[in-house]
């Protein structure tokens, strides 16, 4: 009996000891950080801001797709469903053919933008209550956060009109009330303008750039401000908004030293010329850090395939050493777009690479073309796409000034001609190329649009530009028919509709 009792007690004792060692079950992560110990030091705030920029970079392909894939830049040649090199378009064509549906929405999940918006919200929230960050950094970071949030919402509302507004950080979920309706586009626009104001206020007089212009800055906010107010000036804001836009742009010119046009257009994008004096804000790519995956995914050809074609410039056949694009050409540049450029315009050759068949020596027949604005660099025999992607640059500033001046009835020639003169370089003849001497200059709006097309091809601007000037410009330049005005907005993809019952399909698109 004693033994039984003894051992039973021993066992129970052991069981109790083991199960009472509840502390043993309190484990904290070793190789990652939890909520409990983040936001304690200035380094952590810095790292978070770096993370925000990093995720912004991950949205690059969405920015590009929303900004120009539905415009008149890309497409296969008439009668062809594949690129001239033979690669299939694999659904990308739906964007330029304007055949998007909820199952092939072109850009789904609202570009993934909310995944950074909630981080920005969290940053704003934490900055507001912290005292570990220096006052200077705090206001700089708040300026960045409000500015970037406005940038995201501006992308969203230009693409989907009414969208859900989320300005609070997400720290927990109430699963029973996850559905949330979209706010009217007007409310979204009000938020954007409010965020821009807050950004400007927080930046205060700090016009400095950080991380060689790869971080959002006050100048970026002012560029966004100009873009937003130009947008609303066509939508009831009139001269007042155009003036606001113009003031924002001249604010940059006044307060940011050293901004100018690069002499050589191609140099703007060079991997050895990062953060050059034309750049206001660009997304940074670096070898062994991050590459522009979407470029190889859809915009440049396979090396082995392009090697079968010729370049009429230099009368040479492409070769696998120098022309090792190493991509898949799903979205070629239309030959018609290539041909819009003047041969003397340096932007033609720095933006688009044509490819020719050579049926007999000396005879070149164009087969197609593709974008070569971002050429990357050669790393160990592999072309690595590490160009910075400009979000805002000085040419954009000049052309927006010109645009604002046109709205305000002022003469835009000075700014337009700065851009044209740089583009044509030594070939520039003011009487021929200068504003208002080109045929298109008869319509200042079209002149601006065309100049922006030549200047910003593959920088995610064209579709938004056409949209900004108005639906008639969209109808005139893209496959959207006047009877299908609803198509200027994008459809919401099926999953997004399923996951948020509060959403309704963009009016006009079928709901099944």
């Amino acid at each position: 009996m004693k033994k039984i009792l003894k051992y039973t007690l021993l066992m129970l004792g052991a069981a109790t000891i083991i199960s009472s060692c509840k502390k043993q079950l309190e484990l904290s992560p070793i190789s990652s950080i939890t909520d409990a110990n983040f936001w304690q030091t200035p380094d952590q705030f810095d790292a978070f801001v770096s993370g925000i920029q990093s995720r912004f970079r991950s949205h690059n392909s969405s920015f590009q797709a929303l900004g120009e894939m539905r415009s008149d830049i890309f497409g296969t040649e008439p009668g062809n469903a594949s690129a001239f090199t033979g690669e299939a378009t694999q659904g990308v064509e739906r964007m330029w053919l304007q055949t998007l549906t909820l199952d092939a929405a072109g850009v789904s999940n609202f570009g993934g933008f909310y995944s950074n918006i909630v981080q920005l919200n969290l940053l704003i929230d934490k900055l507001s209550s912290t005292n570990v960050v220096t006052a200077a950094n705090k206001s700089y970071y708040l300026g960045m956060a409000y500015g970037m949030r406005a940038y995201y919402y501006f992308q969203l509302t230009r693409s989907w009109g009414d969208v859900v507004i989320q300005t609070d950080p997400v720290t927990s979920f109430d699963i029973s009330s996850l559905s949330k309706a979209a706010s009217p586009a007007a409310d979204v626009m009000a938020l954007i303008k409010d965020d821009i104001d807050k950004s400007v206020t927080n930046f205060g007089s700090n016009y400095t750039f950080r991380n060689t212009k790869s971080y959002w800055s006050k100048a970026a906010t002012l560029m966004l401000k100009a873009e937003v107010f130009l947008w609303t000036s066509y939508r009831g804001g009139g001269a007042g908004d155009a003036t606001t836009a113009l003031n924002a742009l001249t604010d940059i010119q006044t307060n940011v030293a050293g901004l100018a046009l690069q002499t050589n257009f191609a140099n703007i994008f060079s991997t050895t010329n990062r953060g050059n004096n034309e750049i206001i804000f660009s997304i940074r790519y670096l070898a062994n850090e991050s590459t522009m995956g979407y470029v190889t995914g859809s915009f440049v050809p396979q090396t082995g395939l392009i090697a079968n074609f010729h370049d009429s410039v230099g009368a040479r056949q492409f070769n696998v050493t120098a022309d090792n694009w190493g991509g898949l050409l799903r979205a070629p540049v239309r030959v018609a777009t290539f041909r819009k450029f003047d041969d003397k315009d340096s932007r033609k050759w720095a933006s688009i690479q044509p490819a020719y068949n050579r049926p007999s020596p000396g005879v070149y027949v164009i087969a197609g073309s593709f974008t070569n604005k971002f050429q990357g660099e050669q790393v160990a025999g592999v072309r690595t796409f590490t160009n910075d992607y400009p979000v805002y640059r000085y040419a954009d500033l000049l052309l927006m000034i010109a645009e604002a001046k046109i709205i305000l009835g002022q003469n835009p020639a000075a700014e337009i001609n700065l851009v044209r003169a740089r583009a044509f370089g030594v070939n520039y003849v003011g009487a021929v190329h200068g504003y208002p001497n080109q045929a298109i200059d008869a319509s200042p709006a079209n002149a601006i649009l065309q100049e922006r097309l030549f200047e910003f091809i593959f920088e995610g601007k064209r579709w938004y530009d056409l949209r900004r000037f108005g639906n008639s410009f969209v109808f005139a330049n893209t496959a959207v028919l006047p009877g299908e005005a609803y198509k200027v907005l994008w459809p919401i993809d099926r999953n997004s509709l399923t996951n948020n019952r509060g959403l309704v399909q963009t009016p006009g698109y079928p709901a099944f």
Partner: protein
Amino acid sequence: MSYIIHKIKLLFMKSAAFKVCFIVAFILCSAFAWSQAKKISGKILSQEDNRPLTGVNIIVKGKNTGTQSNVNGEYSIDASENDALVFSYTGFISQEIKVGNSSTIDLILKPDVSKLGEVVVVGYGTQSRRNITSAIGKLDNEVLLNAPRSNVGTALQGSVAGLRVVNTTGTPGASPSILLRGGASINNPGSPLVVVDGIIRSYNDISPDDIASIELLKDAASTAIYGARANNGVILITTKQGKSGTTQVSYKYVHGFNKNREDYNHLNARDYIYYNRLGNLNSQRTLAQVNASRGYGLLTSTADLALFDIRAYTPANAFLLQSGWDTLSDPYGGTIIFKDHGDEIKDLVFRNTHTNDHYINVTGGNDRGKYFASFDYYDEQGIIVGSDYKRYSANINGSYKIKPKLEISTGVSFSTSSQIGVIGGEINTLYRNLSLWPTMNPWLDSAKTKPNPGNGIADGNPLYWLGKTNRSNEINRITVNGSAKYDIIPGLYIKLSGNAYLFENTNESFTRATQTYTGLYTNPQTFNTTRPAAWSFARTFQQQYNGIMNYTKTIRGNHNINAMLGAESFGQKSFSSQISGTGAPTDDIPTLNAATLFAAGSNFTAKSEYRIISHFGRINYDFDQRYLLTLVYRQDGISSLAEENRWGFFPGMSAGWNVHKEKFFEQSGISNVITSLKPRISYGVNGNVAGIGDYEIQGGYGSQGNYNGSLGFLNTGVINNDLRWEKSKTTDVGLDVGILKNKITLIFDYYDRKTSDLLTNLTLPSYVGFGSIRTNLGTFQNKGFEFTVNANILNKPNGLKWDADANISFVENKILQLPFNGNEFNRQGGIQIYDAGQGKVVWVGGLQEGQPLGAIYGYKQLSIFQNDGEIAKFANNRRDIIATISGPGVTYGTAKITPGDVNWLDVDKNDTIDTRDQVYLGNVNPKFTGGFSSTLSYKGFTLYTRFDFALGHTLYNDLVARTLGNYQGTFNYIDWQKKGFSGDNSMSNIPKVYYADQVGAPAGKKNYTRANNAGQVLNGNNSNFYEKGDYLACREITLSYDFAKSILSKTKILSQARIYVNTNNLFYITKFSGNSPEPLSSGIFAGTYPTPKSFVLGVQVSF
């Protein structure tokens, strides 16, 4: 009350200190019985090997008295003349003997060989199936006997009812996927918990020859003892332990010959060129575009001319006809000259290989100590070039009684293995390599010594890419366990055990400078000199300590009690690391020391840890072996849940009734037919937290990689403290029946498992900014039955014996509840189709409450339009929104429907084919699975066969659709193309050949893949490429011969010898056209590494 007093008295009796008290009390209480008692003693031996049996229960029937035999098999007990003694021992047939006049009763116990008498490992103990009241399956060891196995998981295929085991790949060493009773989860059905000799680990790298038994705990009452981790079932593996007796050495050698399975045939170069160029013509591609295509185009660059043996025919190259070239007429006009390299790549990809398996073990022992040691070497080359598996494993275990009451056991096992898969991925090998351009010469020289790199790792000669790559893998597993068992008093023991498991995985790889064919012909040659080198190392160290106390007692002769109480602590520490570099200046150093660039983000070390603390108990009670009851519980606390939800309590109960032991049954005529009959019922709760990250609930900030050189962090997980245990409640009703003296035994189970608080990912609305969150908001139900029959069909005196067994299980699953998201049936995902019955558009697929998992929807192909008349008749006004084509009567789209295109079912009859016109096409999950085997023996010869089957599942044959649909644009077709619309039309369901089906018209008409762009997508394709997967597989046929004792005795060395020949995976009987009809959780057959057919010769001898 009196029961308790008796119990206390009995306990007193065994305690030396209280012996005097006991005697006094005993005399007082049982004076009458005492007066007539006498001492009976004897020795008990096993009939199996004539060795003493220790621990046999001896009770005086109907009395309180009982004892156990000692290590020498001896016992002594007090009984009177009229008493009967009952001798029982797990795994042996109980005997009842009248005392009579004798004072010595020696006995030989017979092992219980019938299925219903087998010993079953139940977790922290063993039990005879006669007393089992829950659902436990046991593998027939015959399955492990013959076939060489790189992974023991394959032995479970079709051999235990309720388990769905699928060979998802034939790559040697790979574990099959295992699912119990349809899986208990919506998102990620887990595999059963594997416990090997008490150690929670994987069964990979265990030598099948080391295994003594494999049990499968299925219902909640049996798995509750493993509580927290057990709701997908538990596989208990017990390895061989030492046996007392003279030392025996056993050696086994198995040699296997492995061969590829039949597969699709691809076209030769002539047909390849013809059909591809015809397809281009049908797709309105220009001659220039055709000729700019690889393989069938007439490319003129030096590199292309060197790679592809195809030219425009001219008198100048007519001489090539002398050296094996041939000509054909181009559908575009003109003549083409080419050389056929069809199947050359296929012959390089596949190879016939050998398996070698040497196994040796030594076992022996005496009364006090036993030992077992084994060594195994296994080597199998995969039938796809580059894949390989090697394993060395060793095992030593032993036990020793250092004191009569104290036994110490220890064991160590070690294995080191290397598993290398195919280069470039299995699907790529099966699709891309095999459908490569048959005009490509895989060799650069006529002596065939220099392989052609082609256009990349999956688009060239695999030998080139293998030659440029070093890959090595080493997996080490070490287990150590020790235990001490102390017999406090007969029937009561305490056992303390500890074990440790160390798992290490090291991978190394290095790729030399490579080039593609185009780089060969530049001057200088062009190379990719990235030279990636990587090394990764992962280690998991696991410790487990437990103590159990077990008490076995018979009270009043027929109340049998076995009670167990235990506690356990489990902990796992993981470490992983990787170094990944590029830029080595030379090919000659395959290690990382030559790499020059180590990019941030690709190098790391990481640590994590988790712990589980538990206590558990079990009581088995039976009355006279007639009424059986088992109660079991386990409480687990786990570190990965928040404090308030950390502890889970998992109870189980089961009861059974041995009807055949009832007087009324014994006396009825039924007992002549039905020897044993045991209905049983069980209910229990299991838990699961699998898939929750060690620190997931704490929320987190994760690395976003570098931005402009500085590392970024973002909030990557939200604090999720509410997460708790997933709980499965299972009711199981079973029946064990033995017919004709247990010659035929039946085991039947019906179960209903409801898993609630299901760990379910809820995909979140976009605005939330996080993709999904794990919730406890799902309920999932599996219902089904399992049936196992074992029969001894023949047992002739002349030695002819025939046994057969079979099992079948049926499972049905249904989602009962999903996280609320406001949609009807809280649907997640899914598609909208027109339901003709309801006359409206409805949501189907995805996840919906009330619906099963795995339903497939796609477009129904009614026929192929044979001519314009048919099109005008059936589709004159049709708009095909999917392909943007239309019938002749309407103006729409980018091309017209032409003969050879598919006539789709227009479900809603609106002359428009769109996503609403999809129909139900089957389910990815089989309804029935099972297997059967037969053993026919005569004298020394035994013929053993084993089959398994799965019925009711559907597979989307992406491989065929992808190949025939020419998704890639230049690759080869399988030979069905020749029989399709563009060929002799004998397979009249194959549409016209086009260039790249998935591309918009006119290039493609989306006749194969409809709703996507050639992705591997289950839904939304052509119904014609959804194939029924029903199959019957011949897993094993073995003919063996055991040498007769008379022959063996002449050798004076051998005690046993056996030789056999066997075939494994010889054939599938199935209508499925691919090489493996086995069900896949994705439902998409994209090309599976074929499980080889093996032909085996084996020898086994014992000394």
